[in-house]
């Protein structure tokens, strides 16, 4: 199999974008082509998206994107894997090149969720759950976030303050990321210690509070992949895809033997490490899928950065901050950069490339990174993709 590298990256601002979904995706795609120093020559396009049909009343968006930016007659399809669509699409791009079906692939993840109301967006994401045993109850993903958080707190002694500290870190990183949805500072005085915490940072999915949850965002992110053997013809040095791992778990969360066991995260990471020939100690930074801040905590343990139940000590010591031992969610994460579901997995990889190239903005730039890990989490952990990128 051929080695695959990333030679171009592009991103829109995340937030509310009042433009056609395909226009949004076209923007990040063109930015990625520009970054790669090319205008065409794409053999295959993979589009990651979850809600075009359900939310935007648009289908066949991979073909629409190709045509919007004149990439015909490139091969094209859409990859839908819930909130893990982005990393799945990158995986498809990797496979196409490794197998020799394509030399250069454009992967674009995009979503436009704010065209509808927050209630409809919540309902749309909840369609990921079991139609009779979960969805029919009005159960939402944040509800599982809340139930998981309670179980985790009761077992491991994590407190709401730990989550508030992660929120402050996420906002601080996002403030320096020009693509981030959230531009407001969050301070521990406001969301935790403040006199009006209960109203300013209300409980939304007990015990999760408003500032423990990601916003609903529009946006797109793109990467250009190519075979490492011919990557020299591009403007920038390639960032190699060193490992990809993926695993699934039960559809109904309640049917997991241990409700706190994110087995698919652990297996996906193990598989990615095995493929890359490294372990968690070699990772310089990670983008972990923090739709609810508890997930940053739990995933950081499942991928082997900290023993189970110990992540809270790392938070207290600031080990996951930009200058810490293992910076996590340097982009602001889903929590503060935003979470256009189909775009998220590609956006995480965009961030790792930016960091490995040394192009991240001052104040959120990780020092001399070598390997970066991205974990893209679908459903409530029923389909997880881990990707490891390496600076050559």
């Amino acid at each position, binding site marked *: 199999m051929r080695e695959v590298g990333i030679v171009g990256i592009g991103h829109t601002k995340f937030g509310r974008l009042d433009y056609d979904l395909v226009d949004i995706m076209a923007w990040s795609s063109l930015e990625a082509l520009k970054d790669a120093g090319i205008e065409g020559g794409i053999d295959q396009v993979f589009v990651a998206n979850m809600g075009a049909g359900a939310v935007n009343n648009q289908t066949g968006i991979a073909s629409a994107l190709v045509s919007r930016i004149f990439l015909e007659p490139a091969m094209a399809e859409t990859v839908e894997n819930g909130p893990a669509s982005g990393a799945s699409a990158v995986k498809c791009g990797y496979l196409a090149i490794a197998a020799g079906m394509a030399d250069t692939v454009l992967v674009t993840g995009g979503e436009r969720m704010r065209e509808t109301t927050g209630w409809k967006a919540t309902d749309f994401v909840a369609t990921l759950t079991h139609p009779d045993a979960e969805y*029919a109850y009005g159960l939402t993903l944040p*509800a599982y976030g809340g139930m998981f958080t309670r179980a985790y707190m009761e077992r491991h002694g994590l407190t709401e303050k730990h989550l508030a500290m992660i929120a402050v870190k996420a906002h601080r990183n996002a403030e320096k990321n020009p693509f981030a949805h959230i531009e407001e500072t969050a301070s521990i005085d406001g969301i935790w210690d403040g006199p009006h915490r209960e109203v300013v940072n209300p409980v939304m999915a007990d015990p999760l509070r408003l500032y423990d949850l990601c916003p609903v965002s529009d946006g797109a992110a793109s990467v250009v992949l190519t075979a490492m053997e011919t990557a020299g013809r591009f403007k920038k040095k390639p960032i190699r895809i060193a490992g990809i791992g993926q695993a699934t778990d039960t559809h109904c969360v309640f049917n997991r033997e241990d409700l706190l066991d994110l087995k698919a995260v652990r297996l996906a990471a193990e598989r990615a490490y095995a493929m890359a020939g490294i372990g968690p100690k070699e990772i310089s930074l990670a983008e972990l899928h923090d739709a609810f801040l508890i997930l940053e905590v739990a995933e950081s343990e499942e991928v082997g950065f900290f023993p189970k139940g110990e992540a809270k000590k790392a938070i207290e010591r600031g080990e996951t901050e930009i200058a810490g031992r293992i910076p996590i969610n340097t982009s602001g994460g889903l929590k503060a950069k935003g979470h256009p579901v189909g775009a998220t997995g590609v956006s995480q990889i965009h961030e790792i490339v930016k960091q490995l190239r040394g192009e991240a903005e001052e104040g959120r730039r990780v020092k001399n990174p070598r390997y970066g890990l991205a974990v893209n989490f679908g459903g409530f952990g029923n389909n997880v993709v881990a990707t490891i990128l390496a600076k050559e």
Partner: protein
Amino acid sequence: MPTTTELYAVDRNVYAFRCPECGALYYPAPMVCRKCRNRRDPSVTVYPDFEKVPLGGPCRLLTWTRIYALPEGIDRPSLAFGVVEFTNGIRAVGVLMTEKPKTGALLDARAGLVRELVGRDCYGLQLFDPSP
């Protein structure tokens, strides 16, 4: 052929599903038995369906939440959910009807109307404090 009464009857129960071959119990229904690979056929044309076992009664609360941002169609300020385990090992989600839920508490699950969707009333488990 169902009788006319059966044809129009509203089933307000929640069911677990038992494999007719080996007796393994599932919720929600799978399409094949994990243990003996016996197939389930909801149309009852090729294979028999799994046996429906009403789900409810005493159960233990494993974790819970109260959510304040509800999906479209539920116009109320909050709703509480819990994950419970029955004595037969089956687990399910239910709507918490108790004032002060506590992890580990013993509850009583009863089927009831949990959500009204357009053209569809959803029956599910409601979780009450056990009757004295």
